[in-house]
Structures are given as C-alpha cells and as structure tokens.
C-alpha cells in the first residue's frame, strides 16, 4: 500500500533512475572502459555544470514559467569571473560578489517583467537573452581573461575518483530538494505553478514567489558560470549557449512537466546525469561523432513522449 503510493507519486523519478541503471549496466558490460575509475571520475566532472544549471530551470518550470536566459547568463558570468578574479586574493571574492549581484539582478528583471506584464515568460526571457548576449559580446567578443588556477585546483580536486565538483552538485541538490519539499516558499512555488488564482485566494503572494523562482534560476546559472570558467581557466562570451537546450532537456528527461506545478528536483539530477552520460557514452563506444545530434534529439523527444503518456 505505502510502497504503491510512493511509486505512484515518484513514478517519474523512479523510472528515470531505473533507466539510468539499465543504461549504465549495458555500457559497463559492452565497454569495459566505461567502468574504469578514470572514466567514472570524468563523467562525474562532465555532469557538474549541466546538473547545476538544471536545478534553476526545474524550479522555474515547476513555478509555471521558463527561463531562456540561463545560457547567456552562464556565458556572461564566465566572462565576469575571468576578468574580475584577475587581481590576487581579493579577486576571487570580488568576482563571486559581482557574479551573484549581476546574475541575481538579471533574474530579478525576468521575474519582475513576468509579474508586471502580460508578455508570456518565453518571450520575455527570449528578448532578455538576446539583450544580455549582445551586451556580453560588446563587453568582450572573444574568450580571454584569467580565472585563478586555485579555483580549478579546489573545485576539480579528486579524492580518489570523487571530484569535489560532484560534491558541490550533491550539496546543491540536497539543499534544493529539501527546500522544494519542506519549505513554505517551495510549497508556494508548486502552488503557483498549479493555479495562480487559487494560490492568491489561499493568500499566497504570487508575485514574490514567481520573482524568487527566476532569481534562484539566474543565481544557479551564475554558479554554473563560475564552475565552468574555473575549469576552462578563462571566460568566453559563447561558452554557455549550449546549456540552454541541454538544461531544458535535462529537466524534461527528469520528468518535470512543462505545464508547471509538478516535478522533482531529484528527477532533474537523473536527467542531467543521463544527458551528460550520453555524450561520454558516445565517445567511449567510439560512435562516429555524426551520431551525437541524432541521439540527443531522440532522447529529448522520447522523454517528452513518455511524459505525455504518463499524464494519461
């Protein structure tokens, strides 16, 4: 009874992890390299940025919105980090503050516009994305700057096969999973995603809630930017762009619906893992690079089809 209930409720999450396990098993069997410690720690590193940015996207989607600015925010923050952290000692601190202030305020603008205008979130964030991208390119239209090596050393330090970066990821997922299921604000985000009007009736301040979703999302994009730039060692105005589609894919694969009000942070972790795993698996299994697009595309489509089956 209890079991059944849980499996009912967390069906999406369970199934994505079930699939992950099967997937990993198959590859471990067919490609021994796949299960070597080195490759495992590679995968853990490769998961990091996507997993982080996907958290924010999930929360926005649960809140009934969507954020198309994550990609450009990541790029922007890499550039900021690379330039601000140049100066010794204080550099890192200044960089962090700058990143969070800027990404936070971008999130605020997104949320504010969604609250105050009738423009659908997709269009708002689309327009915002192109504005930010433009500004970013104006600021610096080619990769460059210097991110202190120390960051890289810390974030990607490996304890055995476990890089710190994945611990950061797990930490964030822990926090936000708890936040979404236990905190008032978390509840309200689900509620608003469910039905704005009834949430208002229940006395929820939907503006505040929506605002917070977009801010969280932008901040997570900022974090991703830092993690990414410290891996690359420099900032690049285009480096983040691919993460938009990937983040949405991860969330959808993780079983969060597009209509809002439902979904689970932990599902997204599974989704992100799967997406990252795919490209590693392609390399490991030595598939011609030309296949990677096909696999990515069909992954997204299949996931969405399954979601819509699940609804019925």
């Amino acid at each position, binding site marked *: 009874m209890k079991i059944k209930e849980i499996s009912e409720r967390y069906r999406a999450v369970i199934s994505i992890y079930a699939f992950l396990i099967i997937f990993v098993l198959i590859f471990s069997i067919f490609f021994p390299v796949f299960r070597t410690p080195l490759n495992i720690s590679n995968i853990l590193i490769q998961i990091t940025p996507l997993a982080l940015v996907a958290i924010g996207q999930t929360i926005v989607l649960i809140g009934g919105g969507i954020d198309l600015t994550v990609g450009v925010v990541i790029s922007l923050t890499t550039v900021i980090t690379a330039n601000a952290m140049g100066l010794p000692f204080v550099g890192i601190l200044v960089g962090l503050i700058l990143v969070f202030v800027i990404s936070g305020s971008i999130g605020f603008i997104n949320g504010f516009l969604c609250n105050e205008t009738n423009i659908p979130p997709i*269009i708002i964030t689309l327009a915002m994305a192109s504005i930010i991208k*433009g500004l970013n390119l104006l600021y610096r239209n080619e990769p460059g700057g210097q991110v202190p090596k120390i960051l890289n050393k810390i974030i990607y330090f490996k304890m055995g096969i476990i890089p710190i970066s994945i611990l950061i990821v797990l930490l964030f997922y822990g926090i936000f999973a708890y936040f979404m299921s236990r905190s008032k604000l978390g509840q309200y985000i689900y509620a608003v995603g469910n039905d704005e009007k009834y949430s208002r009736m229940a006395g929820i301040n*939907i503006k505040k809630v929506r605002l917070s979703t977009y801010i969280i999302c932008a901040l997570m994009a900022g974090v991703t930017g830092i993690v990414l730039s410290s891996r690359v060692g420099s900032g690049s105005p285009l480096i983040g762009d691919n993460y938009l589609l990937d983040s949405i894919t991860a969330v959808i694969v993780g079983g969060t619906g597009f209509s809002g009000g439902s979904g689970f942070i932990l599902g997204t972790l599974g989704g992100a893992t799967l997406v990252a795993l795919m490209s590693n698996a392609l390399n490991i299994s030595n598939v011609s690079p*030309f296949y990677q*697009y*096909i696999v*990515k595309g069909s992954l*997204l*489509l299949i996931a969405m089809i399954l979601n*819509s089956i699940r609804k019925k």
Partner: protein
Amino acid sequence: MNSIYNKTEIKRNNTKGVFVKIFSSYGIYIVIFLLVLISGIVSPKTVDPKNLIEILKNTSVIGIICIGQTLLILTRGIDLSVGAQVVFINILVAGISLGDPKKTFITILIVLAVGAIIGLFNGVIAVKLKIEPLLGSLGVMTLLQGISFLYTKGFAKGSTPPFIRAMGIGRFFNFLPISVVIWIFLAIVFSLLLSRTIFGRYVYAIGSNPKAAGIAGIKVDRTRLLIYAVSGVLTAIAGLIWSGFLGTPTLTGGQYLPLDSVAAVIIGGTTFAGGKGRIIGSMIGAVIIVYLSNFLTIIGLGIEWKIIAQGLIILLLVFIYVGRKSYK
C-alpha cells in the same frame, strides 16, 4: 471559471488610452517608419533604392519562413527547427541534383515533399502526441542536424542547379530579385487565404479558442496538421531560395533563422495567446530585423547591437500589444 482574470483584462482593454490603442494596431508601421527615418538621417546610404532592394532580397528567405511561422503561432504552435530544415533542404538540393539541370524539376518536387513531411512530423508531435511544440521542434531541430551530418558524412556533395540558383540570385531586368517576387507573391496569397477563406477563419478560430472551435464543428486536429504541413512546404521553398543564394551545400548557417523568424512574427503583432495577427505584420517584422543588421553594419556597428536592439524592440512592442498584468 477564470472570470476575474478575463474581466479585469477586458477592463484594461476598454480603458486603453487612445495613444496605446493606435500604437497597438499600427505600432509595427510606426517602428519601421522611425527606423527608415533615423537610418536615412544617420546614413543616407541605407535608404538608397539599391540598398533597399538588397535588404528585401536578404529578407526573402526569412520572410517566407515567417509566413509559415505566423500560421503556426496563430494556432498556438511554433517551429524552431526551420533553421535546420533550410540547411537540410540545401544539402538535399545539391545531393539529389548534383548540379544537373535535367534533374531540377524532380529535385524541387522531392524537396517540397520532404518539407511537407518534416512539417507533418512536427505536427504529429505537437498535435497528436500533445508535446509542447517549442520543445518538440527543438528535438526535431537536433534530429535534422544529425540527419544532415549522417547524409553527408561532413562532405556535402553536389552543387545547386542553375534554375534553383536563379531563384536565389536571379533578377528580373537585372533589378528586381526573383526571390523577392516569390516571397511577396506567397505573402499576398496567404494574407488572402487568411482574410477571405474558410481556412483563414478556421485558423483564427482555432488559435483564439481550440475547444470552442471543436464545438463549433471545426476539425481542429486535422486543420492544425495541415497548417504544419503547409509551413513545412513554405520552409522548403525558403530552403530552395537559400540554396540558390549560396550555390553550394553547407552544413552550417541558418542557425539564426528560428529565433529571428519568431521575433519577426511577434513584433509583427501575432500574440502567443493565438487568434490575433496578420501576415503583413510579420512581413514588416522580418524586414525590420534584416534592416536593423544591414543598417548597423553600414554605420559600422557590430552584430551585437542588432541583437540588443532586437530584444528591446520585442519587449517594447509586445508590451504595448498585451499591456500590464492586473491582479485585482
């Protein structure tokens, strides 16, 4: 019963200021006018007929795509795979014809058919499988890129046959580009379809309220699939012109088409809520977007400024169209 929201919204509409009323129906014209005016003052080069023709020529591809995109957004759909489609079509044209004039006709037929199929595929995903078209078409986009790569293994074969080449770069009385003529012809045809025919009425009805459309006796799914197929064909035509314009198969390019086309349609006054909007608006929207980049290059400003300006114009115009949200 979402009464309170509708009611308040109606209130807003009724109490719209006269300026806003005018702007929300003629905003796009005002914008293009201002754009031409300013650019004319800043650098007369921009507005000389030769350059204007150039601009129209560069608009024709995205313009034709925008016709289809308008139909889709009118009926609460969208297609972000247009860029990948155009690239794929171009490769197909070269691959099938191998530049052989004799194969021109069959090539065009095949390409149009392929366009229709891709459109239908998008349609089935959105209409039958009930998948958010935005994401669905993103998936299709990635798929198409993959298919293009697999089909060519990176080395796109063949070249564009003369006739199709002419569609891209040919001109009547070496002045009026053929592509522009095709584009404007299609635009006129489809505006007539929308304003004068049952099909048009159904499009607006479905966009305005799909459920009601069904109850009013419209075959909603069938119509929407048809629309997807049609826009697929339109994209294929755009692909032919593109292929003619380039004269060679390439695996890259066109990546800016999806967002630019959507942007054009939106600033042209077609709302995501569906059921409102006209072809002419989208066409002017498309011109604005191309005009912007041309103007900015001419005055020596980079692509960055175009992107920024585009974003701002979208926000501004759409805000004027749909206005502030009111909660009480």
